[in-house]
């Protein structure tokens, strides 16, 4: 019902069951060649056709999995739903997308088909109906289904990225689509707003604001379009992080002169204190199974990342390299923790195995890379680079600027899948 779109999946067309065993894109295999794909012209309204293919190409390019073949090489003379697989083999296509556009008033129906050219197989056939003005989101849905068919998991085409935008009157929370489309404000507090953090269902956002003078945690209900002040104890109420089961929030409070990480419930009531010391304890991030928390502490004299096992209460230090490691974020699969660390004087993004066994430096040659956040499929990391938001694609290390906005943006936070 989102955006006034009627999502109706009409037909799941015939797919030979054995074709599921074919692995088209092995996301675990590094340095894989890109799959050559042809996106044929769609049958139907030519204006909508070019819009659909433009969005689809952008989506597929975003993943880094494909080599999109040039339209000039296509041998097909006019758009058709018939397929001569040989024609497509000749130009080197491994995959082929075909489709049909039908319009009725302000509604549009799109039939998409995905083919394995070499084996002459239909891998996917699906219809989508929605309003014309939501065409972009219909295409995103198909693209996600397509990636799921090819890799076993949808991509990020139905996700958003929240971030902090510095305005003349303060810092506000903004949100944009995963591809930088349609950035828009979520708050207009004319005050300092920081650290956006999504609920696991993606319909709520937590953030810190000084709206009432003190740094308190606010809850924005995106469905109800309502904001409430949720956590407001004396002192700090910062860096909220929602547990994967949605039932608790880890947050930094400073009670009784100590700074600690506390578990509070969804109404803001303290459930228990997890960690507290005379030093700094901040930026908690949950392991995806909810059994552990990584956070930043200065207990060893400089900011480093620690892991607290919530079952055993055992605390262990994760990072030993470098003198300033902050902003940990646990990967969706649980195997890595990304963070920002200063190396040779530069802030860079790193990822370290959650058992500390392996560190990879992800950015290099850029300055001031901070505030990493994982995409829900774990294939991308969004971060701030010199107060601009960038997306890092992990399969090839490519870094792309997300937004073309003036001024300073920071603290990006990737939503879960929003379908």
């Amino acid at each position: 019902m989102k955006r006034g779109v009627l999502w109706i999946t009409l037909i799941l067309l015939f797919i030979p069951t054995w074709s599921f065993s074919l692995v088209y894109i092995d996301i675990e295999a590094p340095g894989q060649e890109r799959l050559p794909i042809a996106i044929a012209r769609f049958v139907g309204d030519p204006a909508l056709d070019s819009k659909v293919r433009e969005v689809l190409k952008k989506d597929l390019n975003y993943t880094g999995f494909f080599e999109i073949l040039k339209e000039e090489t296509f041998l097909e003379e006019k758009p058709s739903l018939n397929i001569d697989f040989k024609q497509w083999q000749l130009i080197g296509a491994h995959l082929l997308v075909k489709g049909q556009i039908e319009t009725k008033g302000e509604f549009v129906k799109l039939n998409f088909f995905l083919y394995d050219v070499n084996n002459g197989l239909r891998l996917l056939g699906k219809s989508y109906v929605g309003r014309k003005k939501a065409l972009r989101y219909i295409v995103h849905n198909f693209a996600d289904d397509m990636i799921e068919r090819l890799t076993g998991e949808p991509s990020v085409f139905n996700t958003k990225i929240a971030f902090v935008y510095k305005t003349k009157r303060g810092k506000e929370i903004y949100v944009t689509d995963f591809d930088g489309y349609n950035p828009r404000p979520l708050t207009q507090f004319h005050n300092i707003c920081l650290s956006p953090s999504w609920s696991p269902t993606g319909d709520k956002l937590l953030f810190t604001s000084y709206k009432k003078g003190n740094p308190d945690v606010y809850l924005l209900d995106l469905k109800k379009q309502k904001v409430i002040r949720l956590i407001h104890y004396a002192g700090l109420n910062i860096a909220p992080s929602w547990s994967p089961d949605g039932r608790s929030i880890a947050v930094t409070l400073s009670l009784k002169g100590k700074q600690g990480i506390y578990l509070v419930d969804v109404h803001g009531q303290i459930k228990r204190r997890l960690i507290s010391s005379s030093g700094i304890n901040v930026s908690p991030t949950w392991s995806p199974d909810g059994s552990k928390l990584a956070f930043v502490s200065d207990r060893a004299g400089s900011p480093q990342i620690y892991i607290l096992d919530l079952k055993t209460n055992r605390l262990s230090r994760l990072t030993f390299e470098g003198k300033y490691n902050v902003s940990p974020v646990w990967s969706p699969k649980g195997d890595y923790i990304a963070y920002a660390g200063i190396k040779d004087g530069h802030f860079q993004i790193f990822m370290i195995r959650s058992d500390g066994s392996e560190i990879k430096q992800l950015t290099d040659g850029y300055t001031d890379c901070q505030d990493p956040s994982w995409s829900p499929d774990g294939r991308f990391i969004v971060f701030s680079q010199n107060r601009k938001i960038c997306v890092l694609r992990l399969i090839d290390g490519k870094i792309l600027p997300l937004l073309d906005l003036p001024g300073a943006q920071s603290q990006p936070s990737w939503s879960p899948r929003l379908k």
Partner: protein
Amino acid sequence: MKGKILMSLVLGLVLIFSFACAKKQVVVPSQPAIQEEKQQPTTKTTEEMKPVTTGKEEKGKVAGLEEEKIREEELARQQKLKKEQAFKQEIQTFENEDIHFDFDKYNIRPDAASILERKAAWLKTHPNVRILIEGHCDDWGSEEYNLALGERRANSAKEFLINLGVNPDQISIISYGEERPAVVPPAYCESVRHFMHSRGLRPDSVVPNLSSTKITPDMVDNCQKIWAKNRRCHFVVIQY
């Protein structure tokens, strides 16, 4: 708030000035009130303070007694005003003096300790005063970590004052992290910061050879001074 304090300060000063001048006959040519005074050198202070009634006051003893009473009241009022003025001056002195910290640290430095000793002494003699300690950071480091760091700085200052005997109820704290710098660094400090980053330097490091860059020693010096100013606790009197 600041505007109000400033206004009352200016008004108060003008009042005190004109009063003192009347008594001591100090000539300040630029002030019209004093010039009037010069024309009537024998006028009594009270009359000068109530110029509207001048001329109509000579109505015998009753008037004289009333005059005496008015004069006493006026004197008391002036004294009270003076006292208030002095107190406001003290508040201003108290608020004007920040304490500073080393990069990424929240321990109280010796220079900060002596400032805090003065503040503690004043707070102890004014038990009705309540203060807010704001913890601030420079813009090196992560925003979230700096919020936490600012809180620790404010807390260190608070603990220090409590150890010197200040009533904990007099002190509240808040952290602004890097959000409200005392001095907003000019744009070139970004370049200076990147240059220093690239040499593995911290904001308080001595910067070596600058040749082959567009950065001058003055620029570095200025930025470092600004960053140092921003690593601070600021003190605000919120109630007295």
